[in-house]
């Protein structure tokens, strides 16, 4: 089990993405890096920024940081630990999460709305990482 939102988790996530044929196919035209942000809350004393650089169906770089100035990604999606957990456990569709204000997203909505299949496959990738959440 790998603790969520750590460097180790990010590395494992990158590995799963890069082995996924389904993701490679669905995201073959995608260009754009993300901060997936776990908001501060219980067990999360300060926000964690999970940087993931996605490019043409592959992940080029992934790491976790608490310093948001490290990168300047084109997309920033933030939510509570509980909601990230629900996404990873496939109890919450990320688009639904956005529509219901459980997540906030900043970036080019045109690109996002064109990439719903890729988003779905990205979530499928997270489920393949054996994840432990802070209790």
């Amino acid at each position: 089990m790998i603790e969520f939102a750590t460097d180790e988790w990010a590395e494992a996530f990158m590995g799963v993405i890069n082995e996924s044929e389904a993701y490679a196919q669905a995201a073959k035209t995608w260009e754009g890096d993300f901060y997936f942000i776990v908001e501060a809350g219980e067990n999360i004393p300060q926000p964690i920024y999970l940087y993931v650089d996605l490019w043409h169906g592959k992940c080029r770089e992934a790491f976790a940081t608490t310093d948001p100035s490290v990168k300047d990604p084109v997309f920033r999606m933030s939510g509570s630990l509980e909601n990230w957990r629900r996404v990873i456990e496939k109890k919450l569709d990320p688009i639904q999460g956005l529509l219901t204000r459980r997540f906030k997203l900043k970036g080019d909505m045109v690109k996002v709305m064109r990439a719903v299949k890729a988003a779905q496959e990205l979530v499928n990738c997270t489920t393949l990482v054996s994840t432990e959440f802070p209790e």
Partner: protein
Amino acid sequence: MNMKGYMGKLLVVDLSSEEVKEEPLDSQWARQFIGGSGLAARYLYDLLSQETEPLGPENPLLFMTGPLVGTRAPSCGRYVICARSPQTGIWGESNIGGFLGPELRFAGYDGIMIRGQAAKPVYLFIKDGQAELRSASHLWGQGSYKTQEAIKEELGDRQVRVACIGEAGENLVKYAAVMADAGRAAGRTGMGAVMGAKGLKAVACRGRGPIPLANRQAFTEMARAALLEVKDDITTQILRQTGTAGSADYFALLGLMPNRYFTQGSFPEAEKIGGGAMAETILVGVSGCFGCASQCGRRVEIAEGPYRLGETDGPEYETVASLGSLLLISDLEAVSYLGYLCNAYGLDTISTGVTIALVHYLYQEGIISEQETGGLKLRWGDPDPVIQLVKMIARRQGFGDLLAEGALAVAQHYGVGDWAAQVQGLEMPMHDPRASAGVALSYLTSPRGACHNKSDMYLVDVGRIMEEIGVAAMDRFQEEGKAEVVARHQNWRSVCDALITCTLMNVPIQGLVDMLNAAAGWDVDLEEMMTAGERIFNLKRALNIKLGWSPEGERLPPLFLQPLEEGGTGGYVPDVERLLLDYYRVRGWDRETGKPTAEHLRRLGLEDIARDLGESV
């Protein structure tokens, strides 16, 4: 009369006698039914009967606003056009954005009641409490864009707002739309045909007066807070950047977006016609309604090629699906051109697309041939015969004369009535009921037939929940408990259609209640508003029963009881009887007759309606 939140007056126009007068708004009804289509239904309940000929002079046409229209409440610039529908024979209403609703209020009126039939074509001009009928003989035969421009030119005022019909309305196409503010459409249920039958080419309006508010300062603060919330909402951002058609890719993935006359589960090329593709290709600007932060309207331009268009309105979601994926057309320029033609002729794109897709299906099945189509070869994915059919429908030329009657009439003509994709005579919108139990139930029970707006369960079932009113998250295929959610959602949407607020936007629910109180000087809470919504929904059902509605029409065509083998529906088929049984229990309606029970109507303060339905109260 000093009604806060309301202008307190209806403009009553008799086209036969050319009499124009004012009538006080019924304040008691306003309190009970708020405004918009709720208040319109109450007015029309007393004026309609089974003998009312929808295209006759006795069918009153009502343009109605609501108490938040034209105020600073965000996304509250809409109005609704209501009458007995020539397409379905039951309650007809069509809600439209733009600016004419606010102008009507600024001119001093909450609504316009239009009766009779003009001897020669006319248009109605309203300006600051004055109204007159003017000749429209020179405009008859003109398209909707030209008509709007000609009237503005004639009146010498670019700020005048015009709602008009095109050739389709003049020719009494059963699904003719009313067009306004360039390409905004009141598309559904044939209100354009009602205008055409009355010889009313257009309504033009300009006003500059204030809207009376009970507590202006509190209202302004509430509106400002609501606007901040709306601006921060992801839906606003999505609509601004991609328009309603931005949801096409997602809806296609979920199996909501229909393909090939509802017979194919997926259409990979759908990604070429959505709002994202539009933004990357032909989009040149955006447009919006009064007081709206999203600006979901698209402006497109096609510089060259067979579908060349100068800058004009781009297609919204229903249009990219009905004139795109439903016909397997993946050429966005062609879809935009078809949408433009429908706007210019004044045709509802949903009914037009479904009817044309039906004849493609019948053609493919060998039920109709080139002889019937006037020589047109109908092929899935080929836009050119579709362009011809749109023109033929609007002008009722040849084969188009039959298509102008709608999908059900076409299917019945060829002896395959069950093949028409409709409920109560209204063609299916672009959300396949096999992709969501909520969509299926809302189509079945909507007061105007297959309708996606009286309860937009296609959004609720993909996550747009409303916890404040008990519309909770639920699997889209789950049937147990869905009736409760649909009924509550319908009640709330009845309130939205009364206020009137745009249902695409997430204007805060409590904020709307608070703004209504501040506007009208009322002190109602959310649950009372939900009861008002329930009252309105029951009133529309009662009116439909009065107009001859029967439970036999409350069914999905067999086409929708066949699973789709692939795609996002996952093979789901709604259990219609189960859903309806549960729904009738929740509603307190009689399953045999479809009537609300007397006890139920009494609880809602509708004793007079119960008595009229022959119920003992």
